[in-house]
């Protein structure tokens, strides 16, 4: 039976696969029969993700996307793809008056410029098949709402969402779809950086109508939908995954 939600045999590149959302997406896609090329900075942790993948023929590519030349190298190493999932990203929590241009640049480099360059290079090198799907992991922050001391992260994600709309238009002629998923707080290591105390996290969880943070897999399932042929008429969209947070 033809299953429109299948991603079997699709060849995918997933960045930021060493932890959290990226790792989960890589694992879930492999379980469903896709061939995944995973990239990340930390070789040890990337190998850990690699060892958790189902099936064979996957590959891991160590690359630091804060370096322009490593973005170029990554684009050259991958084969022709059916999809890219841009997960690599990080956050700097700082009250605005303590931020510097350097802080903004560091975050923008990884959260915005790296996926922008990577996508452009893959298109120029004809590494994206007709009908392929590009997905950006954005956020609720900077798009639907923001948080205190989040000016840097919010700016980067706001930029990503702007890019998604314009890219969707420019790539429509190639039948390449471009979408984002916008998660609220997800239980990942990004939370254990520790500036936010446990007490504050407990308070924050109460603000979610569904009374918990999301799990990485719950983001992965939306990404899988956007990668599959079930979503072939969806482009330029943002899928909100936030347990109802932005309703209030």
């Amino acid at each position, binding site marked *: 039976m033809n299953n429109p939600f299948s991603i079997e045999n699709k060849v995918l590149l997933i960045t930021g696969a060493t932890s959290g959302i990226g790792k989960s997406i890589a694992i879930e896609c492999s379980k469903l029969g896709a061939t995944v090329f995973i990239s990340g900075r930390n070789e040890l942790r990337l190998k850990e993700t690699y060892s958790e993948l189902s099936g064979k023929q996957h590959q891991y590519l160590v690359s630091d996307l804060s370096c322009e030349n490593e973005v170029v190298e990554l684009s050259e190493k991958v084969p022709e793809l059916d999809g890219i999932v841009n997960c690599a990203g990080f956050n700097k*929590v*700082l*009250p605005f008056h*303590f931020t510097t241009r350097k802080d903004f640049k560091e975050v923008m480099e990884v959260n915005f410029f790296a996926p922008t360059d990577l996508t452009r290079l893959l298109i120029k090198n004809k590494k994206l098949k007709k009908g392929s799907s590009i997905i950006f992991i954005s956020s609720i922050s900077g798009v639907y709402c923001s948080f*205190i*001391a989040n000016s840097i992260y919010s700016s980067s994600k706001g930029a990503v969402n702007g890019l998604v709309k314009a890219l969707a238009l420019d790539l429509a002629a190639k039948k390449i779809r471009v979408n984002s998923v916008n998660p609220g707080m997800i239980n990942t290591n990004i939370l254990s950086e*520790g*500036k*936010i*105390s*446990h*007490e*504050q996290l407990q308070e924050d969880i109460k603000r979610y109508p569904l009374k918990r943070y999301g799990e990485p897999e719950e983001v992965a399932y939306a990404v899988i939908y956007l990668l599959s042929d079930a979503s072939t008429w969806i482009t330029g969209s943002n899928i909100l995954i936030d347990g109802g947070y932005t309703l209030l």
Partner: protein
Amino acid sequence: MMELQKFITNFAEQFEDTKMSEFSKETVFSELEEWSSMTLLSIIAMVDEEYEVTLKGDDIRSVTTIEDLFKLVKSRK
């Protein structure tokens, strides 16, 4: 050398509405009306910038007075 008085001033500068006279080494900062997530994050950023010590939210919760926090920062120098 880290000086307590200077630390109290740096601490007080993160507040908008609380008078300078309300800050002393005995101040139980979490009881200040203006104490919030924002002031907490500002203290973390100030300590990082002025003293090059990286504090966590739970570090700040673990102490009571400004002097306690001063000692904690000093011990991490």
